């Protein structure tokens, strides 16, 4: 029972990452009708925003300590971050410590800019092109983006810890009135889940309650009619692309402490998030979120030793297996509409 | 002799009753028109006949074959062809190919793995397609891509595709919608000519000019029910029909 509850927690956590990426993918697909294979790369760039910020904050000046030596026997160069020099060691260290949450603010303008640049510079020329071309060009872009990151940051994962207050874990079980020491869960993962919930809620509220969102939703349903009303829908769609990029970026920033970012983390997530989007039903935002959580939870269950010993290898294939079953029983995914991407 | 007999067909979409106990017969070799105001259920009716929609109850008999439950390609294989309201053609293929495909389907059945034959050396099919194109006056355009045709030409092409199968029954869904008067007259001529081949035709039409120049029998559908049936001249004078058409402006 506890084990199952824990796996549900795990699944919610993994699911929130899937859901956030799938949400962005669906926004882009639903509004612009573009299949964006570079979306995983946006997630990855988000994570590297956190890395960059923590590097920037740790920019240091060098002094030489003649007392100590480095590995070659030369006098040791001691690096002191500027922020520590400016704000005093403690405040400075605290600022560096908080670089991931600060990365949220840092990443928003960057991701928005990347999103705008992508849409205006490339994607907009592909609205009328076949989906295969869109896939190909965004896939090429994804490769280019990840190679650029690799060029500057290397291929190894880069540790990007959460602030100290969120390090470690706490007794979640005791908090919700269960026996202590049964359900222990890391702070940061709870933070991540709550963060994802806020972002998802925010996006839905934005689409539901603002005029802008209403126009976009109308545009998703029938682009031409909205265009006839004299509303410049294209401009709004550009903003939606930027929004999707920001969502992916934020998902990445916050994910950095969970798994140390590396340049191919986007590709690792890309295929899975496509499966998530399709299982949810192409073009359906609630579907994408629902499928993200469902697949996340099922994946966690399939990883349990009892399940694996019963069905060896099931943890490797569960997502794909579920995807096949769902697509065969529900032709357009969980919440898909008819006629989207079927020809 | 009856070629098509529809009995007790009902069809609802959610709460909306689209077809209400429709009974309908078509005699072999005749041209039978179905008319009715917008939303009368004409297209639904047609779709129920050719397997695109499954009727909730009732039977559709083609000769002594029941069409209910059959798949579209099976219905075609027993001799029912259909012309759509917006022309359904193979846009990326040439006109000649567009005609050869139905001709091959007629000759070789619903699936044939002729992976090693040469399309361009199949003289029988080619000649047939060429004749057909000549019949509809598109012979000169045989090698151009079908999507580049004008709307009227596309309709003629689609008609030619259906005719190349020598169907026993041809269903036409507004074959002249959106056509100029000259094109409409051409099409009427064409349809009259194929009358000579003894093909039974069911035409759904808005344009009364077309209906009265073609049809031997007219069925009037309103709100999913047949309200009148008879010879064109009888229908013209039927008050129920005039009422259904809001004072009979068309008539």
């Amino acid at each position, binding site marked *: 029972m506890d084990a199952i509850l824990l796996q549900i927690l795990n699944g919610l956590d993994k699911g929130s990452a899937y859901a956030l990426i799938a949400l962005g993918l669906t926004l882009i697909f639903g509004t612009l009708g573009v299949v964006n294979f570079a979306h995983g790369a946006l997630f990855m760039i988000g994570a590297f925003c956190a890395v960059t910020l923590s590097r920037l904050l740790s920019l240091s000046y060098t002094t030489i300590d003649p007392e100590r030596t480095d590995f070659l026997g030369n006098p040791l160069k001691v690096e002191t971050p500027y922020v520590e020099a400016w704000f005093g060691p403690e405040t400075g260290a605290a600022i560096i410590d908080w670089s991931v949450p600060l990365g949220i603010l840092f990443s928003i303008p960057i991701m928005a800019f990347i999103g705008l640049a992508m849409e205006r510079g490339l994607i907009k020329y592909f609205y009328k092109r076949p989906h295969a071309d869109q896939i190909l060009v965004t896939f090429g872009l994804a490769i*280019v983006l990840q190679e650029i990151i690799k060029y500057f940051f290397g291929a190894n994962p880069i540790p990007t810890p959460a602030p100290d207050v969120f390090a470690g874990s706490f007794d979640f079980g005791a908090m919700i009135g269960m026996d202590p020491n049964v359900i222990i869960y890391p702070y940061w993962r709870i933070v991540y889940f709550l963060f994802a919930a806020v972002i998802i809620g925010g996006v839905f509220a934005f689409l539901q309650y603002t005029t802008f969102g209403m126009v976009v939703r109308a545009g998703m349903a029938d682009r031409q009619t909205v265009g006839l009303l004299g509303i410049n829908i294209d401009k709004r769609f550009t903003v939606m692309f930027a929004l999707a990029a920001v969502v992916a970026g934020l998902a990445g920033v916050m994910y950095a402490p969970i798994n140390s970012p590396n340049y191919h983390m986007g590709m690792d997530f890309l295929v899975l998030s496509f499966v998530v989007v399709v299982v949810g039903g192409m073009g359906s935002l609630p579907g994408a979120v629902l499928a993200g959580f469902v697949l996340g939870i099922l994946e966690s269950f399939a990883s349990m030793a009892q399940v694996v010993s019963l069905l060896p290898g099931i943890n490797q294939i569960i997502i794909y*297996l579920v*995807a096949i079953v769902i697509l065969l029983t529900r032709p357009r995914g969980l919440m898909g509409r008819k006629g989207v991407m079927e020809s | 002799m009856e070629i098509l007999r529809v009995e007790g067909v009902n069809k609802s979409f959610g709460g909306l009753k689209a077809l209400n106990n429709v009974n309908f017969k078509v005699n072999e070799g005749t041209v039978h028109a179905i008319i009715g105001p917008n939303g009368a259920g004409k297209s639904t009716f047609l779709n129920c006949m050719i397997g695109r929609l499954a009727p909730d109850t009732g039977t559709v008999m083609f000769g002594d074959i029941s069409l209910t439950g059959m798949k579209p390609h099976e219905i075609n294989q027993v001799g029912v062809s259909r012309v759509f309201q917006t022309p359904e053609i193979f846009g990326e*293929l040439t006109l000649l190919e567009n005609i050869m495909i139905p001709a091959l389907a007629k000759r070789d059945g619903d699936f044939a793995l002729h992976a090693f034959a040469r*399309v361009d050396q199949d003289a029988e099919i080619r000649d047939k397609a060429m004749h057909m194109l000549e019949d509809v006056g598109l012979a000169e355009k045989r090698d151009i891509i079908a999507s580049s045709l004008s709307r009227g030409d596309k309709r003629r092409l689609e008609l030619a595709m259906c005719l190349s199968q020598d169907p026993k029954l041809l269903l036409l869904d507004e074959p002249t919608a959106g056509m100029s008067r000259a094109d409409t007259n051409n099409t009427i001529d064409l349809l009259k000519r194929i009358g000579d081949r003894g093909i039974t035709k069911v035409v759904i039409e808005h344009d009364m000019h077309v209906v009265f120049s073609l049809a031997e029998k007219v069925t009037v559908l309103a709100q999913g029910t047949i309200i009148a049936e008879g010879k064109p001249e009888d229908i013209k004078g039927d008050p129920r029909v005039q009422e259904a058409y809001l004072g009979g402006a068309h008539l």
Partner: protein
Amino acid sequence: MLGLDKKDTSLFLLVLLLVVLAPFLLNPFPENSELAQFNAGYPDLMQRFLIFGIFAIGFNILFGLTGYLSFGHAAFLGVGSYAGVWMMKLLTMNVLPAIIISVIFAGLFSLLVGYISLRRSGIYFSILTLAFAQMSFSLAYSVLTPITNGETGLQLALDDPRILGVSQVDGSIPLAHFFGVNMRDSFELSLGGWLFTFNAGYYLCAVVMMIAFYIAVRIFRSPFGMMLRAVKSNQQRMNFTGLNSRPYTLAAFVISGMYAGLAGGLMVAMDPLAGAERMQWTASGEVVLMTILGGAGTLIGPVLGAGFIKYCENIFSKINDNILYEWFSALPEAVSDILVFVIHPFIGKGWHLTLGIMFMLIVIFLPGGIMEGFQRIGKLFSRKKKKEADASGATPAPAE
């Protein structure tokens, strides 16, 4: 010739000529010149060009004709490879049975996958095929290790039974051969500074690929091929024309799966190892890229796309800074430093970047792939010619 019309015959002969003369054409630079780095005329790469060419030709029969975008075709190549290696382990080192069994296994597997996946269309079909391929990859890499040898890849061993052959020759694993002709055997021709290699394995691939290409041409020109194009064009009309589109698409799927298996079989015939990675989604994506880059739906485009990608992968990845400095050794040091600095990100470990940029450029500017590039060049020439003809031949029309 061979039941092809004139145009196809000349295309076929052109391809034949290119394939036969590839050892010359791909080695245009003298052996010890600086540009020898760009020579691709060595057996392994030439074999790869043809093998992936076959793979792409097959994929094109499905994608180019019917428009069904499979994202899992690498699985059939992988299954074919495994079957081929097992044949060489159990039966004989003659490559013929291995190739045949590869095609059969890949065909059966694609029948299964196709039967299920073709119940859906569009992106739902793509995701179904992707799911099957990823499952195959994951399982082959892990729990199926006893059959596939997992991470390492299935390979030959000294104690394989090889019923119709020998387990080992003087403590070595026997070489793959085709009725006695070893796949590794090569003739070499040295002409001045040039060196040309004619490899037995390559020419076996060449024969197989020409057969595969011939079959593809026949399919393209057959009623069956026309029906497949009809599927792509308008499936609704097809059904109302009395054609059952499912068996057509399934047949195309299985045929292209068998092509993939053939490629897998040839791969192990040339190099008897079957790695699980060749089933990964990236490998499936690669053949999609090859086909689209070359020109989907064209006869020869996919082969060119395959050559393009394999060339990038094998040639650019091997250029390192040292080689760059050698190239620019004649220039002043500062200039060569700058040049190396600029080029450095694109070569060696940066070959992915080069490939990514090339994809984007081709897709952006040549939607019809490399073939469209050729057509444009061709048009440019014919226009020029026409202009010349106009200029020289036409007398100015007298004004009225």
